[in-house]
């Protein structure tokens, strides 16, 4: 229960972190995409359903403040969370390569889908330019930030996992 509350609070927290702090720390005119990072990691940790729900609310928050309409970011990030949930069976705490690969692919997917749904649709064709100047730098910066944030999220998750295991053992002993 505490873990669920923590997950629910972390979404607006990461949104604030991105909108208020990381916008001042842009590198090469680009800021990292913390929302995709967070949803990707939650999907990977807790499975399809948590990933999809977290993605939906994270995207909705972005839509309310900065979107032209509600639902576009929500849809894209929800799908990312769901797909990443499919990999939750391959989760091992020691392995950092798979989550980093997943974050890279997720951010690339987000960039591509966002480009198609808001730029290509208006006839902005120069994909190479946007790929090189927006999507790739964003992925790189997101990866850089995830090297710091992923261990923190993993640490919190490990705490809860250990607590649950301890509790189960205790209840078994009582029986």
């Amino acid at each position, binding site marked *: 229960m505490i873990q669920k509350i923590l997950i629910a609070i972390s979404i607006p927290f990461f949104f604030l972190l991105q909108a208020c702090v990381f916008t001042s720390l842009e590198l090469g005119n680009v800021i990292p995409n913390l929302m995709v990072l967070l949803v990707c990691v939650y999907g990977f940790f807790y499975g399809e359903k948590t990933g999809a729900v977290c993605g939906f609310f994270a995207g909705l928050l972005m839509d309310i403040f900065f979107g032209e309409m509600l639902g*576009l970011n929500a849809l894209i990030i929800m799908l990312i969370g769901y797909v990443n949930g499919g990999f939750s069976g391959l989760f091992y705490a020691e392995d950092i390569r798979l989550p980093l690969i997943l974050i890279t692919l997720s951010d690339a997917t987000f960039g591509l889908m966002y480009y198609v749904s808001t730029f290509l649709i208006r006839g902005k064709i120069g994909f190479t330019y946007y790929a090189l100047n927006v999507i790739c730098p964003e992925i790189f910066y997101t990866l850089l930030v995830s090297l710091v944030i992923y261990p923190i999220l993993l640490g919190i998750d490990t705490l809860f996992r250990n607590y649950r295991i301890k509790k189960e053992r205790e209840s078994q002993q009582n029986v």
Partner: protein
Amino acid sequence: MSPVVKSKGERFTIPGKYLLLILTGICILLMILTYGTSVFDVPVNSAVGTIIVPFESGISRAGEWLRNRKDELSSVQSLLKENEELKAQIAQLTEENIILNQERYELTDMQALLGLSEVYNSYEKVGARIIAKDTGNWYTSFVIDKGTDDGLAIDMNVIAGGGLIGRITKIGPNWARVTSIISDGCNVSGQVASSDLTLIVSGDLSLNDKGLLSFSQLSDPDGLVVKGDKVITSNISDKYLPGLLIGYIDTIETDANNLTKSGTISVATDFSYLSTVLVITDVKNNDYE
């Protein structure tokens, strides 16, 4: 048996696939409903206004502090050099200012004579602080800490550093989103101050990092417009008040049709270092009927 049906003694759960379908449906429905309409604006904007916005103003101060530290590290050398240049510039500007002041007295006299009032200074303005910026890298918009409670409304123009920044496109009780003129796909009807020729100014993501805007549909057969000409908002714009400074012509090219010209404009204000803005509370009056 359907997997959704609850059997005895089992907790009710929805399989992932169904959840995905439901959420996708909600998203698509939301997109259809909110595209071009504002059905949910009042409840949703008030809700996030009470929950999220109070935190934003606090946290954005932390962001500003970090940015200042980052800049301090990188800019001591360049600041010293800039300081020298600025001192020279001040001397030059003081001299120009004296001349301009003399001319202004003359202008005021003339205007009084003709019964014209000063347009630019007469707008009512309210100051506001930027508390959050766009979380994506595709568009340029930001959130300010004032909303309908402070008398702001949608379409009010926003200026900073003497130049036009954008206009309010979404509003809650204690926050408002400003879409800037450099945002991709944002169009402003402008005119060249010296010759009154109109043009369309559009934001373009590929020019943002150079501090430029693109312009098009300038009909200038006599070649009156040259590099460095001042571009202001035009009288015929429906959202922007007339006479606000947009920027200065940077490059001009004749289009393939040989009738119109297009090119780039350098923006008057540096958008990456904004922290406070002025909102003009006068809205352009379009009631012609």
